[in-house]
């Protein structure tokens, strides 16, 4: 049984480890590329959001490589992601492709079905394989995200441009190849110290920009046109407000036992958004307020075109931006996003923040000299 799953950032490394440990052969689709997007756009509904199109592209490429079962996550609304799997099944069916789906739904939605699917998945190595796989995947995910986080800090300060990205790539490859927890920890430790010992210019004080928005476009570097790398090269220190480790902790583990509460987010977003609106809508508003309070220099809000929750957020952020006096730019991505236009807007945004800071410093100096 050859399994495959759609891409989302680097988490294929963790997913591959999980299913390998359970005794399945995993076919990782080629990393999302122009070809993936073209394939997906061709067969997906026209106004569906970007992640769906990339998913379809990933599936088609994986099927070409011999995948027999697709693993996909489900959901229970109101965001469209919850219905992706159903539509994707229909798309592949109409293309004449016979393929089985295993759709992992939220445990609280249909526990019986989830149990049945898990039974299929653990048929080879039993519960032990599942537990080992989960531990390995969790460890890898933690390592990936910490390495990425560190790279965001180091990249704007590096002296030889591109060194950090290269090292990160190498470390991720090493992580993918290992399958013991001890080794993963070793790579994580060594990798972190290696990254921190790269040649950096300690005098640079990079601008600090936070990224909020829709989780897929934040994590998937193809969908966001390598946003983090681009910003790093513009000497900006990036903070990603969404990461998978926290998401899994909050929305899968805590919420399935009924312990997750979004009260702290509602409090932060009060005045701008007063309800959960699906996806990461509430988080985006609350996190922008938190970033503003933490004296960040700017916020980038990224979303796929027609994303329902994030469009509501876009309107709210306009007001957050003027109330907290923090520059916010909304970047909408879809299959028509051009690289040059994207880069120009980023450069202009960074330039604007830099000038603003300079003006503020200047104003401070003059007011001090007057005293």
């Amino acid at each position, binding site marked *: 049984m050859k399994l495959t799953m759609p891409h989302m950032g680097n988490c294929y490394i963790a997913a591959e480890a999980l299913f390998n440990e359970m005794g399945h052969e995993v076919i990782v689709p080629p990393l999302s590329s122009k070809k993936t997007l073209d394939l997906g756009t061709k067969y997906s509904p026209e106004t569906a959001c970007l992640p769906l199109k990339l998913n379809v592209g990933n599936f088609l490429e994986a099927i070409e490589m011999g995948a027999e079962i697709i693993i996909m996550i489900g959901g229970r609304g*109101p965001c469209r992601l919850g219905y992706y799997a159903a539509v994707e099944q*229909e798309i592949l069916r109409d293309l004449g492709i016979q393929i089985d789906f295993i759709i992992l739904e939220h445990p609280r939605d249909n526990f019986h079905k989830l149990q049945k699917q898990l039974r299929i998945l653990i048929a080879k190595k039993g519960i032990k394989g599942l537990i080992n796989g989960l531990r390995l995947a969790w460890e890898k995910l933690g390592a990936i995200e910490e390495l990425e986080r560190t790279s965001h800090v180091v990249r704007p300060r590096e002296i030889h441009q591109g060194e950090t990205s290269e090292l990160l790539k190498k470390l991720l490859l090493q992580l993918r190849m290992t399958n013991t927890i001890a080794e993963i920890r070793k790579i994580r430790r060594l990798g972190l110290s290696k990254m921190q010992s790269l040649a950096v210019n300690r005098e640079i004080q990079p601008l600090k920009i936070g990224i909020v928005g829709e989780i897929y476009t934040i994590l998937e570097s193809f969908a966001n046109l390598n946003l983090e790398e681009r910003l790093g090269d513009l000497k900006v220190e990036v903070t990603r407000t969404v990461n998978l480790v926290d998401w899994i902790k909050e929305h899968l583990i805590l919420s399935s036992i009924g312990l997750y509460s979004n009260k702290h987010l509602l409090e932060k977003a009060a005045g701008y958004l007063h309800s959960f609106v699906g996806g990461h809508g509430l988080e985006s508003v609350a996190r922008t307020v938190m970033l503003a309070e933490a004296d960040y220099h700017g916020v980038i809000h990224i979303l796929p075109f027609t994303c329902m929750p994030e469009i509501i957020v876009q309107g709210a952020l306009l007001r957050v931006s003027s109330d907290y006096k923090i520059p916010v730019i909304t970047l909408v991505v879809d299959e028509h996003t051009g690289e040059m236009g994207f880069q120009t807007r980023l450069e202009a945004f960074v330039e604007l923040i830099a000038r603003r800071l300079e003006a503020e410093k200047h104003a401070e100096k003059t007011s001090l000299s007057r005293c």
Partner: protein
Amino acid sequence: MRIGIPRALYYYRYFPFWQSFFEDLGCQVVVSDKTTRNTMDVGVSLTVDGLCLPVKVYVGHVSELIDKDIDYLFVPRIISTAKREYICPKFMGLPDIVKNSIKNCPPILAPVVDGRVSSLNIMKAYVKLGMRFAPLPQASFAYLKSVKKQHQYETAAREKNLNNPKNIVFDYLTIGILGHEYLINDDYINMGTMRWLKAANCRIVTMEELTESTINRHVGKLKLKRMFWTSGKRLLGAFHHFRGRVDGIISIAAFSCGTDSLTMDLVERYSCRYHVPHFQLSLDEHTGEAGVITRLEAFLELLIRRKKLEADHAAYG
């Protein structure tokens, strides 16, 4: 107290309920005028460009209402009207969208209509709202009475259909319309499509004329994941009710409507599988009336030819 209700979105579904509810509480209900070019332009200029057209128009209506000297603006936060189902994220954030796009907005009455767990929660929300204007017994009584009014209205809407002429004469086309009620019933947003179809002597059946149980029966038969959007569920159910009963189906969707982007795609796939003539109209603020009419004419022409062909075959058969 003057309560402003914008003539957009779920006005077209729940207005009888809202009107009766507020009037029983001794309030005066003020409704904005019908959508015009101006409403749309104002709405478009006030909102972020990614929003769907009906929500932009809604904001336009709100800004027109403000000039009508109202004390409160009624913008419910409709999360869910049925168990384990949602409406659409934009309805969940509607009061926030309004507040974020309109400056000097009057105080908003925003009951949280959330029937995901139980419809009792909906009652609680309305009674709590009613208690701002009247004591508890009166508020609960107003709620119950309004629910009954709404029910009567919906039944009347369905019966209107039953009274339609059943003796369908040759080349008298029956057309099923799929789409949100706020698109179908707003003559300006849908570019007069419904008016035009009626003038062309078509018999029109809409989703509003189907009972909840009919829709659930059809959706239950589908080998598809449970649809968690109420509107999407109604669309799919109505499609399966219409096919075989009508000559053609016209679906009306707003461009960049999130739920429709997936459900209308499913409808399109089903209509290919079941060979139902299907025509999809996508609306946004740039839609031109002439283009719409031309495409409608072509579609009707096609249906008439198909019907004639079928009639000929039957005669020879």
